[in-house]
């Protein structure tokens, strides 16, 4: 997929194209979650948009897409999910950086990126789970393990989150990479054109 890009990933000009990518990415996150619950899948699959936008336009757009996704969830469905915007922002940054340096290219790279995104998500989500929910995640599989481990303490909560997040993020990254490959070239170049000024 994306080749290694040059320049500083943090200093990307916010073009209009990057800005309108954010609502699209958030919409994709939203619809992904909708389809996942419609098909009764045991995963969340609510960060495809975040990862896609991070691959296309870099870590900052990815982080913003992720953060705003949860702000919108918070304003329309579930107030507490607002704080998990931090998790999504972390995923956006991790995936954006990996893609920027051309690591999301072949299968091993994609899986490593998925693992990394999953670990970032675990590190940010677990303390939040502890603060707001006493450690559980709200996912059946993870919570079953959490209960089996005595439903208290940081370790049980950590395992609970790992069981859900790592497979979820790997699947998301595989989906993202697959979709990215078939995106029209005219769209990809919109974000990855070299910064050549015409003046």
């Amino acid at each position: 997929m994306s080749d290694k890009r040059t320049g500083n990933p943090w200093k990307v000009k916010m073009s209009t194209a990057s800005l309108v990518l954010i609502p699209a990415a958030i919409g994709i996150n939203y619809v992904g979650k909708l389809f996942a619950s419609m098909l009764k899948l045991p995963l969340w699959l609510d960060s495809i948009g975040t990862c896609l936008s991070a691959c296309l336009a870099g870590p900052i757009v990815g982080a913003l897409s992720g953060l705003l996704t949860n702000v919108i969830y918070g304003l329309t469905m579930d107030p507490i999910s607002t704080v998990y915007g931090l998790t999504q922002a972390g995923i956006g940054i991790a995936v954006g950086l990996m893609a920027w340096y051309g690591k999301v290219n072949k299968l091993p790279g994609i899986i490593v990126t998925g693992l990394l995104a999953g670990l970032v998500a675990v590190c940010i989500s677990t303390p939040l789970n502890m603060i707001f929910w006493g450690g559980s995640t709200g996912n059946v599989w993870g919570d079953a393990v959490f209960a089996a481990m005595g439903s208290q303490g940081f370790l049980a909560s950590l395992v609970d989150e790992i069981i859900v997040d790592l497979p979820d993020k790997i699947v998301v990254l595989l989906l993202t990479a697959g979709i990215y490959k078939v995106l029209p070239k005219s769209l990809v170049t919109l974000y990855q054109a070299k910064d050549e000024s015409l003046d």
Partner: protein
Amino acid sequence: MKSISLYEEKHSFLNGLSPETKLLYVIVAIAVPVILGGRIPFFAFIAMSITLLAGSGVLRNTKTIVAVSGFILITVVIIQTFFRGGTFTELFRIGPLVARKEGFEYSLGIVLNVLNIIFCFCVFVLTTKPSDMMQEMVKHGISPRLGYVFVSLFQIIPQMTEHTSTITDAQRSRGMETEGSLATRIKAFLPLISPVIMNSFTDTRERSIALEVRGFSSTSKKSFLEDFVPSSADSGMRIALIVLFCASVAFTVLRVMGVIAWLR
């Protein structure tokens, strides 16, 4: 245009307050019970939020929000009551499961905290127009371009979710199965999501051109279409909230120093 915003114009007391004041209420309502400790402050703020919401005629709109988090809360109570480790006092038994007093009390604390957050957030979310939130953000220095992104979300998401049923029907008519074993359902995910993604990216190109044509990147100062004028109660409410917050901090400090005893 259809919007996913839960906001409803009722010309109520809460509608008249500025978004800033309501956000301050959210912060105070979450922080004060945590600072004070004990259960009573949580009950007090939940009751206050419910009263405010009922007074603004939007209490029934909280149903969906409470239902979403309520489901997770039920699982939390079950998990903590029956599986919490450590020493415990038995409450009752269901088969091999023992209900534990400590776990139940712990989960009650979580329930109270979450309900408090939900209701005070509802005070903000159900009575504030998204464009007013955006206006407030822009006035506080957030780029108007990001402000556009924020407001546009409330319309773009319903547009996209409307597509989902069309896509599901179209793929089913081609013979794709959306029910059955886990493998079947996983296989169905990609054909469902990819048309949404392709559609939305095509729209993205068109939207960015449409915006550019209308001078979206112009650096001249942006003005507001409607200016939000808060009601006369706004500044009073704000002062009351700040006083309440400072009082609770002072009270806790005095209590920790042992000057006053905690009334329970």
